[in-house]
């Protein structure tokens, strides 16, 4: 456990950030506990990076607060020794060597120069440390950024898309490393727009969309939600929907999207693998799962409950099964539902 006077709990309270006409963060509140890895998830433009930058004192909030151990980042006595952050991977002068970049940061952090070589070793960059950082590959830049975050041996780590540019082996290493750090009682917050990227690492999730909190829970609870979605097909869909609504079950037609994953308002390309050529296991679902017209998805219910409602209402059913949504699909549904809810 690293020493220090502040606890590692991150608290975001009623945070609002407006950039001109754009409301980037909209009354966002959540907490991140020490000793756990928390995934901070949302599509691109959801407000994740803005929230992190407010938390780190780089952006002034319009209203509300974001604190670490009850203090604003800029009020921490020696911030880099309490909080390590990785925001953009390429925040270095290209003419400076990787090692010199860290030496400059070590100077401000007030840590010994020997710590530079330690963190270079931890992230596996020792062999390239004396090369100019401008020639680094994306993966090496990412490792350099992580090395910078680790310099002060901080009890809180804030990482924005840390797996960016890492090869599969690097990603696996990062997972293990972050788990170890959390095991030491540190607070780890990782932002990502792909749940599958952090699914094997995180204990908790904070999901936001369009600047608002959508879900804050443990990953296990999210998985339980995923397991409780029912796919049901009826030739008389409207009657089915009415019956389900009457029984108080959250149901929605699934025909607009073949897999019933997204609301109609999410543009193509926002999904996994769409934006930056990222690939993830979420894409593995076969296209043959295309639902027929009349398909309905029911959240938070079992097939038995849905079947009972349909039977009682006398609605004919052609299919009734668990939707077997992956975590990623559940996540996408959560962030896609948000605009519909706002419009309502």
């Amino acid at each position, binding site marked *: 456990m690293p020493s220090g006077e502040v606890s590692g709990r991150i608290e975001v309270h009623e945070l609002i950030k407006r950039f001109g006409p754009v409301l980037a963060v909209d009354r966002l509140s959540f907490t991140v506990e020490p000793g756990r890895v928390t995934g901070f998830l949302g599509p691109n433009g959801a407000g994740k990076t803005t929230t992190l930058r407010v938390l780190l004192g780089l952006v002034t909030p319009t209203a509300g607060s974001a604190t670490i151990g009850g203090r604003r980042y800029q009020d921490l006595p020696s911030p880099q020794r309490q909080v390590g952050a990785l925001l953009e991977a390429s925040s*270095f*002068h290209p003419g400076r060597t990787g090692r010199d970049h860290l030496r*400059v940061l070590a100077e*401000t952090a007030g840590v010994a120069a020997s710590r530079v070589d330690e963190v270079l070793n931890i992230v596996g960059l020792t062999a390239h440390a004396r090369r100019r950082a401008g020639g680094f590959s994306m993966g090496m830049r990412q490792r350099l950024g992580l090395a910078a975050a680790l310099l002060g041996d901080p009890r809180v780590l804030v990482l924005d898309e840390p797996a960016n540019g890492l090869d599969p082996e690097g990603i696996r290493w990062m997972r293990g490393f972050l788990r170890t750090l959390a095991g030491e009682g540190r607070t780890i917050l990782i932002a990502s727009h792909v749940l599958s990227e952090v699914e094997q690492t995180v204990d908790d999730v904070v999901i936001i969309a369009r600047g608002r909190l959508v879900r804050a829970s443990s990953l296990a609870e999210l998985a339980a939600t995923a397991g409780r979605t029912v796919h049901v097909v009826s030739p008389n869909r409207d009657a089915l929907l009415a019956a389900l609504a009457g029984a108080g079950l959250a149901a929605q037609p699934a025909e607009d999207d073949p897999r019933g994953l997204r609301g109609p308002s999410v543009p193509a390309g926002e999904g996994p693998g769409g934006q930056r050529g990222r690939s993830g296991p979420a894409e593995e679902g076969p296209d043959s799962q295309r639902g027929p017209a009349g398909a309905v998805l029911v959240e938070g219910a079992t097939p038995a409950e849905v079947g009972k409602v349909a039977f009682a209402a006398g609605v004919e059913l052609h299919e009734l099964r668990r939707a077997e949504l992956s975590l990623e699909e559940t996540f996408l549904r959560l962030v896609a539902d948000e605009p519909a809810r706002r419009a309502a």
Partner: protein
Amino acid sequence: MIGRQLIALRAEWLKVRTTRMWWILLLVMVGYVGFTAAFIAFAFAALPQAAAGPVAPSLDDRTILLAIYTLGLPLGYVFPVVLGVLSITTEYRYQTLTPTFLGEPRRGLVLNAKLLVSFVIGLAAGVLALGASVGAAAPVIALTGHAAKLDDPLIWRSLAQACLGMALWAGIGVGLGALLRNQVAAVVVIIVFSQLVEPLARFGLNAWSATRDIAEYLPGAAADAMAGASLYNIGATAPQLLQWWQGGLVLAGYAALFCLLGGRITLRRDVT
């Protein structure tokens, strides 16, 4: 607070030492100043034969000698300005402002540190630039049969004042960088102002006696005052210069104004 300021200073100093731009620029400056000073000295040495009038400026005139020896300041001042500007704009350009402000969230301390480090580099640039102008001009003057007068204490005092002027120019650069943030914009502003706007303004304002006093307060004129001589004030209608310390105060005033505005306004903005 003092401890954190010292840490910020050491970090800024390390930033300069771990990049190459500063010594490349200083090397270019020394070459440019040395060559031009030698050329101008030679032109003055050759002048009497070409146009031997009664008021022809002569290298035997101490004011002219002084103006040539201190050429390092008017020729070289753009370099400390650019170095000062770069200390801020490179941070915007390479997004290193993020790690810089993560390391020291009190942004004023970072600006102070950059100002002080740039001031010291400006002093060093002054020593190099004035060394280049004296070192190149004095042999030319001696070889063309004039007295180099390097034993004149007034010349050395002027050289020292000019060095201080170079350091103050570096401070103006830091302020400009903080205000403008964009590297290309800042460099364009410096070049257009120093090569076009100010020379024209000095020329124009000096044309009327009513506006002549204003010209003294232009930064280039104030810097010339620090050197105690200027090639502008040779001839019958020589414009006046301020006292050297007045010139220093004017330059320091520009630096303080720009840094204050930059620190209060632009540097406080969100780093995204």
